[in-house]
């Protein structure tokens, strides 16, 4: 008998999460993006692993659906890299929830990721994680606005030229 209530492994919750991810296919199919049942299971497993690695716990469907809905219209996501990209975005998301000390809401963090991914990173997950998100987290930890940019690298000379 398991008395550690906090550690209940709820297979029911996992099944619900897979079903919810599959429901997103209805919306994403317009962009030619569809996840198979196995890929949906893999996403849920990645979520569990990311949560565990980052010392977090989540109830219900979580943020997978929000990430899918936000990123499905990205010009940098195709049917060939769809599942892999969503997996990596999710890992990044939980990592930066911790790095930002939970100072940013889920929606704001996902929007920031989407804007950076489609904008300055031009579809590069490495740039998104190691540059944009890292800088944003540092800014938040130091009390600056998320998009605060230090002008160290681009100091103007006397003529106003870089």
């Amino acid at each position: 008998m398991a008395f550690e209530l906090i550690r209940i492994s709820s297979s029911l919750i996992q099944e619900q999460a897979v079903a919810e991810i599959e429901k997103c296919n209805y919306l994403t199919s317009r962009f030619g993006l569809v996840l198979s049942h196995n890929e949906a299971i893999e996403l849920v497993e990645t979520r569990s692993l990311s949560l565990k690695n980052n010392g977090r716990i989540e109830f219900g469907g979580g943020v997978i659906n929000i990430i899918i809905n936000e990123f499905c219209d990205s010009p940098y996501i195709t049917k060939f890299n769809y599942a892999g990209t969503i997996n990596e975005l999710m890992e990044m998301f939980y990592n930066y929830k911790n790095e930002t000390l939970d100072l940013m809401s889920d929606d704001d963090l996902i929007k920031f990721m989407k804007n950076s991914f489609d904008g300055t990173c031009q579809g590069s997950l490495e740039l998104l994680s190691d540059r944009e998100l890292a800088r944003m987290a540092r800014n938040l930890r130091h009390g600056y606005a998320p998009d605060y940019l230090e002008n160290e690298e681009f100091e103007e000379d006397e003529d106003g030229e870089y």
Partner: protein
Amino acid sequence: MANIDKRNIIDRTRLSGENYFTTLLKQACVSGILTENNLKKVQIQCVEFLAYKCERYNSGDSSSIRVEIAESIMKSNLYTIGIFLKSLSDDDSAALQLKTQTISDMYQKGRRIIDTKFKVTKHIYLMMRSNKIDNPNYTYNATIGGSGIGIFFKTYNIDFEAHESPASIDYQICNPIDNLVGVEFIQKYTENLLYENQFCRYFDSATIHHLLCGFDDKYEDLLINIFEQVLATALGCIIVGQDPISLNITREDICILRSKLNISVNELAKTVRLAYNSLVNQLDIKRSSLKKYIEMSLSQVTINISNAVKLDTLPTVFPSLKNMDLLPKIRFFRQEKMENNEYCKIIEELLSCRLTSDKLALIKEKIHTFGDLDDVLFDVEFSIAEVQMIFNMLDEVDSAALIKRHPIKTDVMAEELSETELNLCSCLQKHMEQLNYDKRKRILEIVSRLVEE
């Protein structure tokens, strides 16, 4: 028929006051009150309720939460439910509630009880503060003050950390509380302290102060329980036929106590109990709650007396009154310091001296007042060895005067001192450690009686 007791299914001894809900759930399953399905239902409800509370905690901004925070919220939920279950008439009916009520309902009921307990505790705290005795003991005053238990009423988080007791409590009460946490712990602690204060208020606070000075001159800084000392001494007074209010046990009384109390533990407990009955009558204690608390403390007093008899340390349990104000004082008159010009010349000379022996000879020859010596110690950067040698030249009263002026402080207090003063204090401490026990004791005795004029 009147002797027939109700048979309980739940084994009370296996329940924890701290984790009442989880231990009750376990016992309810073991005893068959809850089936496997019932247990699963309770577990699922707990997780669902945790999800709801975590959402509230995040204000809907985040779907995930750190594991440690979730665990703390879970503990808080279970504690609140446990408070409701504890409030029921018996453990069996509490276990049945797990079957018939939802987790959410039980939580809401527990939450209302905690609200009430919080208000009751605050009321008891205010009562306890108003009847606190006038005593200089630091931990006693700090614990009762606003930055001690008072913190609890400002920071207690009933919604998410109901199981925590955020308060700074260092004062040790006579009957320590274990197996309780959260508001229950604070309520019990303040209640106990209220009883201790009520009892101590039967005695004059100055007499209590003199009694505790008899226990230790520096009792202000010690982690002692005032009530326990007062109770033991009052009982001792009864045993030797003295007036308990006086708390006055003389050396002759100690001899009588030694012979009277050198008995078996059972007989000692009886003697203490008889003395307690007499004490209650003489002090005219009417409150049954106070009497109950004192009765609870008797076993501790009995153990202390028994150990003291065995180790021949009865004066620590029954200290004699010591009025520090009545002790003869040693007056230390400050003489006039030398002229500035003359002093500067000596300092220059001392700074130009290469040999320690020359420096010592110069001090011996030219420095005649305590004030000048104190200045020289600060103005000339002597090495540690040199300072030690200067201290060796001093007589006991001069050493005591130096210690009085530059008391040896704890690391925390020493933070306020300048580097030179810190060095001087540490040299003084080392110098004292080097002295033999008798001389050190004599110097400290002088320090306690020294009055600088």
